[in-house]
């Protein structure tokens, strides 16, 4: 549990926020460029001189008026916005820099070989950072942070400069590692997909202040304000474990969804389903003869303005949960959709986490 109540002035810019970050979870920090995300992470790491207020980590005071624990004693790792590799050292020396002694390492969360493998660093071990491409440097920075076996991991736009394949791979493994060791992570990211895939909690910042905080589900509306458009996150639980044609049955309240199986550990936990509103279509009755095989009954709760004037966001209730659909006003008229009516919502899930 990380408790932060800080204030910091840099020229005109003022960071001022109080928040209790959840232990053992991934908290995404989201906000426009220049709103103070990096400064927040650096403050937590103890790298911002002139910080006022308190930072507490699991009953240890890290920063208070009378007492400041040094960065190196906080047991954290921070992946900075730039890789900042040690230029005079080889990649291997960079990676080993933060690693505990071998005797301690045995029992550690992240094993050297696994991390090298995960980030595909094998071919570069003896190179100097200057001989790596941008993405390769970024991967070394991530690996270096993980290998220091932090109690708390701070990631500042860690996936910048990575290609999509590497990114997916790393995010999946990061999630796996995070869950296995209940590692608390603060993740700064501009990409909703990264946030959705990794985060449990979301903190949204604006101009150095907290705008809102909450679980991913609660915050989905806020994330929607960003350009990729409105979206919803549905909680689903494993069904009766019927597998058919490579599809797995999941329960969304009373209704059943068939989703492609995933590599995610098939434990009995419920999962999150990310659905972009633009991917949801509405029909007044169940559609036949279509490949849309996930159609759920839903009730129209209300309407919201969408970014484009010709469209509306339709708010739907599916059991207890909220689903958003982006449809044109023309369709609303044509289908005569009104609050309270029941409709069939068809969608393809964008991502299952």
């Amino acid at each position, binding site marked *: 549990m990380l408790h932060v109540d800080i204030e910091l002035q840099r020229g005109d810019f003022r960071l001022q926020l109080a928040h209790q970050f959840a232990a053992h979870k991934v908290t995404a920090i989201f906000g426009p460029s220049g709103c103070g995300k990096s400064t927040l992470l650096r403050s937590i790491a103890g790298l911002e001189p002139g910080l006022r207020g308190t930072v507490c980590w699991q009953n240890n005071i890290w920063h208070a008026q009378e007492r400041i624990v040094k960065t*190196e004693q906080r047991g954290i790792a921070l992946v900075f916005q730039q890789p900042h590799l*040690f230029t005079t050292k080889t990649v291997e020396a960079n990676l080993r820099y933060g690693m505990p002694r071998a005797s301690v390492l045995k029992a550690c969360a992240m094993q050297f070989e696994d991390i090298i493998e995960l980030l595909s660093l094998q071919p570069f071990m003896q190179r*100097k950072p200057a001989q790596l491409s941008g993405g390769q440097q970024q991967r070394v920075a991530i690996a270096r942070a993980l290998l220091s076996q932090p109690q708390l991991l701070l990631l500042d736009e860690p996936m910048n400069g990575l290609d999509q394949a590497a990114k997916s791979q790393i995010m999946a493994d990061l999630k796996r590692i995070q869950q296995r060791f209940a590692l608390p992570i603060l993740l700064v990211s501009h990409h909703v997909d990264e946030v959705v895939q990794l985060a449990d909690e979301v903190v949204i910042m604006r101009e150095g202040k907290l705008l809102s905080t909450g679980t991913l589900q609660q915050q989905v509306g806020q994330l929607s304000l960003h350009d990729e458009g409105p979206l919803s996150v549905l909680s689903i639980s494993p069904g009766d474990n019927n597998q058919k044609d490579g599809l797995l049955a999941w329960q969304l309240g009373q209704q059943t969804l068939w989703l492609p199986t995933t590599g995610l550990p098939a434990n009995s936990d419920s999962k999150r389903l990310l659905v972009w509103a633009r991917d949801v279509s509405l029909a007044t009755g169940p559609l036949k003869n279509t490949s849309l095989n996930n159609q759920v009954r839903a009730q129209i709760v209300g309407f919201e303005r969408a970014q484009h004037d010709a469209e509306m966001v339709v708010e739907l209730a599916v059991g207890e949960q909220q689903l958003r659909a982006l449809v044109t006003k023309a369709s609303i008229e044509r289908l005569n959709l009104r609050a309270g009516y029941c409709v069939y919502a068809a969608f393809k899930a964008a991502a299952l986490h």
Partner: protein
Amino acid sequence: MDSSDWQAVTLTLQLGGYTTLILLVIATPLAWWLARQRSWLSAPVQAIVALPLVLPPTVLGFYLLIWLGPEGFVGATLESLGLQHLAFSFEGILIGSILYSLPFAVQPLTESFRQISQGQLDVAATLGAGWWRRFWTIVVPSCQGGFLIAATLSFAHTLGEFGVILMLGGSIPGETQVLSVLIYDHAEAMNYQAAENLSLGLLLFSFVVLMAVYTWQKRPTGGARYVAR
């Protein structure tokens, strides 16, 4: 070369070695402070460090002689503690050399420390490296060039300097008569051949040492050229 020449050689190497070593030890924290702290004191301290340079060496030696000698502030204090005053002793010329070469050690180091990547230091701290470890693993390798300049300039300057040493040390064979003083003495005695031989030896030796140091430094440190990508 006779035995007094050899004595002078040994003495010179000792003086050069100790001066360089002690200078690095003194200059490093001073330079760190100058480079990293923005105090109003930095500019005056930096200026004061450079001041011994502007005095003619013998004059500086003269003042040091006064201060370190039996009637001077430092010497008298030492004598009142039952110790020896420092004029005409190896310790004395060591202090003189250190003072006189101080700016050559402090200034390049200060500049070197100013150039350090704060990013790398910050990363190292987050990876659990305390001050000492950061210093040895990040600062020293990045400032290798600065340390080298500090060391070679101090060493070379100590080898060649003789004004301060002559005045403060009195050129006593085996005690304070270093090679530069000896060469000066030979030249003064119109013993040109001896002076030339010793000079050539000193030049050759210095050249070899400096060559070795600079060649070692040339080892590629990663080709700054390509960091731009």
